[in-house]
């Protein structure tokens, strides 16, 4: 098992002697060095101003927008030959999207990949934060479709820029008020907006609000890339992240009545899945690595029934 290297080593540029240059058609990690430098500059700015959306000149990537081009560009700008990469999509390592992105980086960098959270130095994700707590030597890269939580409420970009510049966030709170007035509670179950470092309003990307507490004071560096919208933002390690709420309607995450049918986890984000061709459904961890590791470490006698009828 490879031990993860320090995160500050992961941005080391590959040298000409590195084996990674043997792919003659493309530069290491696909992007040219100038583009990577441009993205890294935007990343540094993003880390310096937590939650602030930094514009960047997004490049065309060999896959369409909506397939994680923002996240891929960040990963490409950060990945070094000694990194270990994990790619997850909706919590799973084996979906088409995750497999494609992982094999793209395998071909373009020759870096090691893993499904185990604790082995990874870079984790690119769509729609989930791993259940396994992250460490300070890890970077979590989110794919983001809509970086601005107020874009649905205020179509004018200049006015949105003003809102962020002056911390004028009445409008997003209006949305919360209205949800409670009309539905009795805030209706957003995914992409639940947050205030980063007590200052900037940000989208956590379409993760379930169940994951929002993991954003807060996380030891890992969290980076967000929106390809189509050409924005990068960051939550530096150990930064306060507050989910919007009211004093008398505090932010809460949904409790589960069920435990995972495979590993018995009572506290992980569950998905209802059809488990056989007779339409039987069970609740199973959405984080497939977490579930597999729990099952692997359980003694046989407490191991839960495999998903069989």
């Amino acid at each position, binding site marked *: 098992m490879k031990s993860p290297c320090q995160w500050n080593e992961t941005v080391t540029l590959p040298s000409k002697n590195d084996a990674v240059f043997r792919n003659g058609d493309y530069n290491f990690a696909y992007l040219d060095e100038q583009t990577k430098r441009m993205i890294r500059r935007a990343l540094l700015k993003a880390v310096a101003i937590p939650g602030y959306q930094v514009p960047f000149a997004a490049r065309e990537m060999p896959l369409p927008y909506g397939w994680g081009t923002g996240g891929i560009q960040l990963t490409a700008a950060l990945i070094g030959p000694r990194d270990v990469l994990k790619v997850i999509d909706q919590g799973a390592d084996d979906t088409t999207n995750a497999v494609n992105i992982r094999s793209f980086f395998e071909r373009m960098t020759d870096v090691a990949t893993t499904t185990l959270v604790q082995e990874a130095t870079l984790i690119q994700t769509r729609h989930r934060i791993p259940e396994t707590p992250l460490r300070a030597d890890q970077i979590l890269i989110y794919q983001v479709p809509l970086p601005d939580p107020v874009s649905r409420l205020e179509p004018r970009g200049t006015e949105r820029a003003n809102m962020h*510049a*002056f911390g004028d966030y009445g409008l997003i709170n209006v949305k919360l*008020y*209205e949800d409670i007035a009309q539905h009795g509670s805030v209706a957003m179950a995914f992409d639940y907006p947050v205030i980063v470092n007590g200052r900037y309003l940000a989208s956590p990307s379409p993760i379930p609000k169940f994951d929002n507490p993991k954003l807060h004071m996380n030891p890992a560096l969290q980076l967000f890339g929106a390809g189509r919208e050409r924005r990068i933002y960051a939550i530096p390690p150990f930064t306060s992240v507050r989910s919007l709420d009211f*004093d*008398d309607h505090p932010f809460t995450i949904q409790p589960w009545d069920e435990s995972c049918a495979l590993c018995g986890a009572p506290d992980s984000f569950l998905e209802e899945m059809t488990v056989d061709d007779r339409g039987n459904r069970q609740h199973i961890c959405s984080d497939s690595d977490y579930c597999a590791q729990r099952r692997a470490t359980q003694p046989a006698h407490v191991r839960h029934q495999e998903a069989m009828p």
Partner: protein
Amino acid sequence: MTALLSGRGLTRMFDGKNGCAQIDIDLHPGEVTCIVGESGSGKTTLLNLLSLQLRPDAGSLYYRTDDGARIDLGLASEIDRRRLMRTEWGFVRQNPRDGLLRDVSAGANISERLMANGARHYGALRDTAIDWMRKVELDHGRVDDLPRDFSGGMQQRLQIARNLVTGPRLLFMDEPTAGLDVSVQARLLDLLRTLTSQLGIAILIVTHDIGVARLLAHRLLVMRRGRIIETGLTDQVLDDPQQPYTQMLVSSVLPV
């Protein structure tokens, strides 16, 4: 009396002719000031200059803060200007469509400014919204209804409530009764008169309708071709207009 907002030499021209020039104006606490004039007289430009929605080509604007300090708004930071606009000032648009959030309830509309200023208690916000609906004589049972479910006159009341909720010291109104039926207009003017005497805030109303000025204004400014041509206490100006243009304006309306 010390002015709340003072403009000196305010000038803003468009294409070298339309706009307003060399305007001196003082708005006093507790006083209703009306600017009357025809369209093209420069009254809307002046309103936009005074309410910080336009920058002047020349001239200065001074505001007296709560603690008596006099600040030059031309030099104030954008943060200070915006804070003023969303706490100490209000702006009621001619068309409620431009001054209301269309897709959220009356209660959310009234609560927005409070939330922008940091209010974080839903129950308290809702109580305040209901209270303000009562004050502007709207059925508070409709606090969850959308603006489009209200009539034009009621939408204008809602817009007024939404602006007054932060307890502003100064309220700008752009033709607030235009487009309303005469009877609805009269009721709205009555409400405005009650509110202004109760709240003691400074109000600047821009109107082409001298009847509105007669009913509400303590002080009257008549504008023509970008200049203030006559100014004084409303009764003075209306009873004894000095300028031929003002005489014409006054005689063209029926006595109230």
